[in-house]
């Protein structure tokens, strides 16, 4: 039986209640997680899905990349791995398969089927993807030469079977990662988060005597889809093209994104045909991840207000030819796929600037630079630390771009005092670069200069993932481009030396790593 809610007020109330329960789950995750990526940088998402794996609601705090991904993952799990009849109450599924999950191995998906209180049937799924602190392999970044160097692969498995933890899986993970208690601690925090969500859902199911979630889900998704389609219908039909140059390795292998956006009535199709082939560096992206980062800016442009669920994505389709950098195949290395995913909004917006000029923003001096470092402190303890650095934000119609602000991903920086406490470094500078944002009627935001010195007696391993060292954030409608970024090392004797913009390097004792983050583009011609 499908529960239908004819009363618009019941529907309003139940919908809010569902959002509230995934938020409860999110707060459980954030407070029990170990990795700074999850807790401080909130690099996760929790989604409640119906029995078909369609997303109904997502946590208010979520990283955009994970949004479309969870329903995709659950649908594949149902179809190819764990059909409903093999799932039992108390089962919890795990995988980090990049093609099913979020495009690289550190992102671990935990999915818990939700049984009706009388245990007879599955009424839905709750899923949580979070960035694990470590998954083994080479240090997270663009440096791996293939998929197999990027650490442990966890195929879709039952992490917990009928309430019993699968010790074999735990032992394999434990033996393959750098900080096992952190990685396992985060996985268990994800399990706990799902449980919290289910617990609150059960209360609601009992209160309203729900047999399933599908009727409710259909209504929520349909209402959202209608609103999204209406918003798209208001934009002019047409075929809008853009070409976007990215750094690639910032040397011999640049990357080009060809983007064709077709608005046809109430739907949008994005086609990346003509984009660069798979890249030798680990910056290749997979289709579901590319879909998430393409649909995300489209939602922001057309209907930022409506709640996010399956319905917001239905009017959007995305295509990228197999074997291109946006639809990479095994064994392509994927580690730093974020630098590619995180700039897809730019070609999409550049194309859409022809259709809805007042609704797009100039390019951001992003993607966020992810700059992990690891090594051994003088007292012998090992450490891994992640630095996230944002460039300037793009100018908007009516508003300048703020300095140093993440887009489209959303991770907080690590405070200088915390960084110096956790790693043997001395930070010399964290400062805006005045004038690095492109000028314009609404100028782009400034980037920043960040430099630190290795103050230990041993070399530090660094993994650089930069972008816009060679290219620039575009300005729109006469606004200037943002200033390029730069990365280099100052040696002990004060000389400037090369360090790869993407890849692994060693920072010797007393050497200084200098990073200059790019500025955002300006919007409109300066008067």
């Amino acid at each position, binding site marked *: 039986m499908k529960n239908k809610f004819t009363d*618009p*007020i019941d*529907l*309003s*109330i139940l*919908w*809010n*209640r569902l959002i*509230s329960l995934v*938020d*409860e789950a999110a*707060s*459980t995750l*954030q*407070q029990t997680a*170990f990795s700074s990526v999850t*807790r*401080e940088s909130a690099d996760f998402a929790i989604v409640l899905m119906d029995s078909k794996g369609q997303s109904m609601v997502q946590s208010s705090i*979520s990283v955009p990349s994970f949004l479309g991904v969870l329903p995709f993952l659950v649908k594949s799990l149902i179809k190819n791995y764990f059909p409903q009849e093999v799932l039992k109450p108390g089962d919890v599924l795990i995988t980090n398969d990049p093609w099913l999950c979020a495009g690289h191995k550190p992102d671990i998906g935990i999915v818990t089927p939700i049984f009706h209180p009388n245990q007879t049937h599955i009424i839905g799924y709750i899923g949580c993807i979070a960035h694990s602190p470590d998954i083994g392999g080479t240090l997270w970044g663009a440096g791996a030469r293939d998929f197999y160097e990027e650490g442990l692969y966890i195929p879709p498995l039952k992490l917990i079977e009928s309430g019993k933890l699968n010790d074999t899986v735990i032992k394999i993970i434990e033996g393959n990662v750098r900080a096992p*208690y952190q990685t396992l*601690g985060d996985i268990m925090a994800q399990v*706990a988060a799902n449980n919290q969500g289910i617990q*609150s859902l059960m209360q609601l199911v009992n*209160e*309203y005597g729900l047999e399933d979630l599908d009727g409710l889900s259909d209504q929520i998704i349909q209402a959202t889809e*209608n*609103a999204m389609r*209406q918003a798209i219908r208001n934009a002019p039909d047409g075929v809008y093209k853009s070409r976007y140059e990215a750094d690639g390795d910032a040397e011999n292998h640049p990357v080009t994104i060809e983007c064709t956006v077709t608005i046809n009535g109430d739907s949008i199709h994005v086609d990346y045909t003509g984009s660069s082939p798979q890249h030798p560096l680990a910056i290749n992206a997979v289709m579901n991840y590319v879909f998430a980062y393409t649909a995300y800016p489209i*939602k*922001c*442009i057309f209907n*930022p*207000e409506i709640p996010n669920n399956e319905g917001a994505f239905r009017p959007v389709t995305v295509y990228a030819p197999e074997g291109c950098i946006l639809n990479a195949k095994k064994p392509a290395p994927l580690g730093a796929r974020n630098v590619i995913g995180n700039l897809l909004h730019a070609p999409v917006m550049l194309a859409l600037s022809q259709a809805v000029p007042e609704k797009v*923003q100039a390019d951001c001096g992003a993607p966020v630079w992810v700059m992990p470092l690891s090594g051994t402190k003088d007292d012998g303890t090992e450490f891994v630390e992640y630095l*996230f*650095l*944002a460039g300037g934000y793009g100018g*908007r119609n*009516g*508003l300048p771009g703020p*300095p*140093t*602000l*993440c*887009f489209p991903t959303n*991770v*907080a*920086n690590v*405070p*200088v*005092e*915390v960084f*110096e*406490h956790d790693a043997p470094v*001395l930070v010399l*500078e*964290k*400062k805006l670069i*005045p004038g690095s944002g492109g000028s314009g009627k609404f100028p782009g935001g400034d980037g*920043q200069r960040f430099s630190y010195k290795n103050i230990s007696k041993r070399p530090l391993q660094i993994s650089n993932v930069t972008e816009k060292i060679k290219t620039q954030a575009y300005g729109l409608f006469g606004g200037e481009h943002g200033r390029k970024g730069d990365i280099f090392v100052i040696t002990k004797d004060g000389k400037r030396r090369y360090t790869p913009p993407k890849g692994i390097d060693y920072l010797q004792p007393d050497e200084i790593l200098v990073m200059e983050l790019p500025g955002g583009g300006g919007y409109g011609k300066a008067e």
Partner: protein
Amino acid sequence: MNPKLILGIDVGGTFTDLALLFAESGRLILGKTLTTYPDPTPGIFSGINDLLQKAGISISEPEGIIHGTTLVTNAVIERKGEKTGLITTKGFEDILEIGREIRYDIYDLFISMPQPLVPTSKRFGITERINAKGEVITAPDLDEIRKIITELETEGVRSVAVVLLHSYLNPSHEKQIGNFIRRNYPHLYCSLSCEIIPEIREYERSSATVMNAYVQPVADMYLNNLSENLKSSGFKGFFQVMNSSGRLITAEQASKKPIDLLESGPAGGCMAGVYFSKKLSIPDLLAFDMGGTTAKASLIRESEPQITYQFEAAREKRFKKGSGLPVRIPVIDLIEIGAGGGSVARVNELGLLTVGPDSASSQPGPACYGNGGIYPTVTDADLVLGYLNESYFLGGKMKLCKEKAAEAIESFIAKPLGISVEKAAWGIHRVVNENMANAARVHIIEKGLNPKHFKMIAFGGAGPVHAYHVARLLHAPGLIIPGAAGVLSAFGFLVSQPAIEFTYSKVQKIDCLDFNDLNETFEKFKKEGMAYLLGAGADEKYLHFKISCEMRYAGQGHEIHVPMPLPPYHNKTGDDIKMLFENQYQQKFGRIMQGHNIETVTWRVLISGNPFFQQTARVVVEDGGAVLKGYRMAYFKGQYINTPVYNRYALSANTILKGPCIIEEHESTVVVGCEGEVFVDEANILHIQFVKNDEPVNS
């Protein structure tokens, strides 16, 4: 000190509330007057004069005045603080502007970030450095500071914030600079981060210190003037201020650290809840306060307010977490959502009914005020449902118009949704209740606690109207409605304790804690705190010490607040601390992590005196009306029922009333549904029990 007569004054955005307490008899006289702008002083004095006249006493008689104010909050929100300069470690001048680089709203492309309180031209770096171990790498050069001050003075700066890296570990450089400024430039205000908020994380420390500097001249002048004016009008008693964590501080202390006043009003409400928790011997309560524009909820556990250090001021988007300026001071841990009597209801593009977060506020106000408001609000719905009395709003001071309310609901809600006006009104009532219950539930679950465990205590103008249903939605075991619902904050001031808090940030693994250092630090705090409290009139016999620590598993970034044993500490204390941490962690997260290192991050030492008043208070209102005022049609269980309406002031002790019923008082109306049973106690406090606790909540 046991004053016999004390006066609480709460200056809010719209109203200035007053409460005069005769401590020996417990007699409480209340007053309410409009807040005056830009200077609230005339409003305060007119309120005092009215109240004194009512009580038949002179200004020389009260032995103390306790004050709470929105002045500091407003100065930050409206950017009306003083021109402020920032001196910081060279190379880090822009930390204040860079912030944490994260967006508070992931879908809004047109996001705006809060502007820093100090612009680039007034932020200066000096050559100095202390490392993460607290060791000096480069000492500051005082000549450089002199030059910077000259430049700041040319810019018209009157207040200076000093924030240097790692000063929470080693404050010597900040102190050196502070002493230099205070000695050589006595006309400048100077806030040092090591004095304001000695905690790790440079952006958060800068944000709080700069905010303190920014509001200090304004707050100092205001508090000085007020206290001078009170003195010259004949007031002879002590003058204290309510801080954000529900403690009383001297005006002098408040002038030094005015950011402590950011939440002084809301803290008063919670402290009133704490008082009732003690009086009624119900240690755990959910305090629920619903006013005209917002609703607030906070937990009281073991008759103590819950404190958080995650506060933010002046949010860019009012109810959006992360959109404000962080201020990690101790603040009563409350959630605030856009749900009040004035919250506007509408049908959104998805065809759903939404309520708030925006409010029709007092101008034009809800449609039923008849001041030109056309949109339906929560108050309009409550009126249509028969919960409110058209002719007894604010005790009859204000007439409401039911037709206008029904009209607004009809055209904006009922018609678009194709339902009847009463269904629509009931929908508004339900949706706003759901919003509040959802927010409260997330708040409680975040702490690892069970919402079903907490009885609710409700106040604020709209609180008692909605509390019944909110309590049912949370499956609360009961509901308590004290009197004086409309001015409870001012009363809360009178039942709070004078206190001072010290913090000490030191990241240490618990198996290698430096006990000598901790003991010495605690001893120093104790001495300083005692001197302060005795100076503020506290009784040495009743001084109370509390130590707590923010702790975590090494590697986690989120600390939990753990109560600690009293010093002196010795080698065995480490085991106790571990156990206390694990108990707390287990309770909050349902598990502990075997074999992980545990570390301390920030120690907090709280020293407090006794509250001035702990006996039973009773509001005295000469009303003279009958107990049963009559009957009116009110909406319960899907239909209008002829419902008895009682006069709260005439209810005698031990009365029992069965729901559905309505109980009216001046500042609010208590609505009790069909499954409620009301018991009136000696102090005219209403205790509502739910007869059936598992009834479907949507009826």
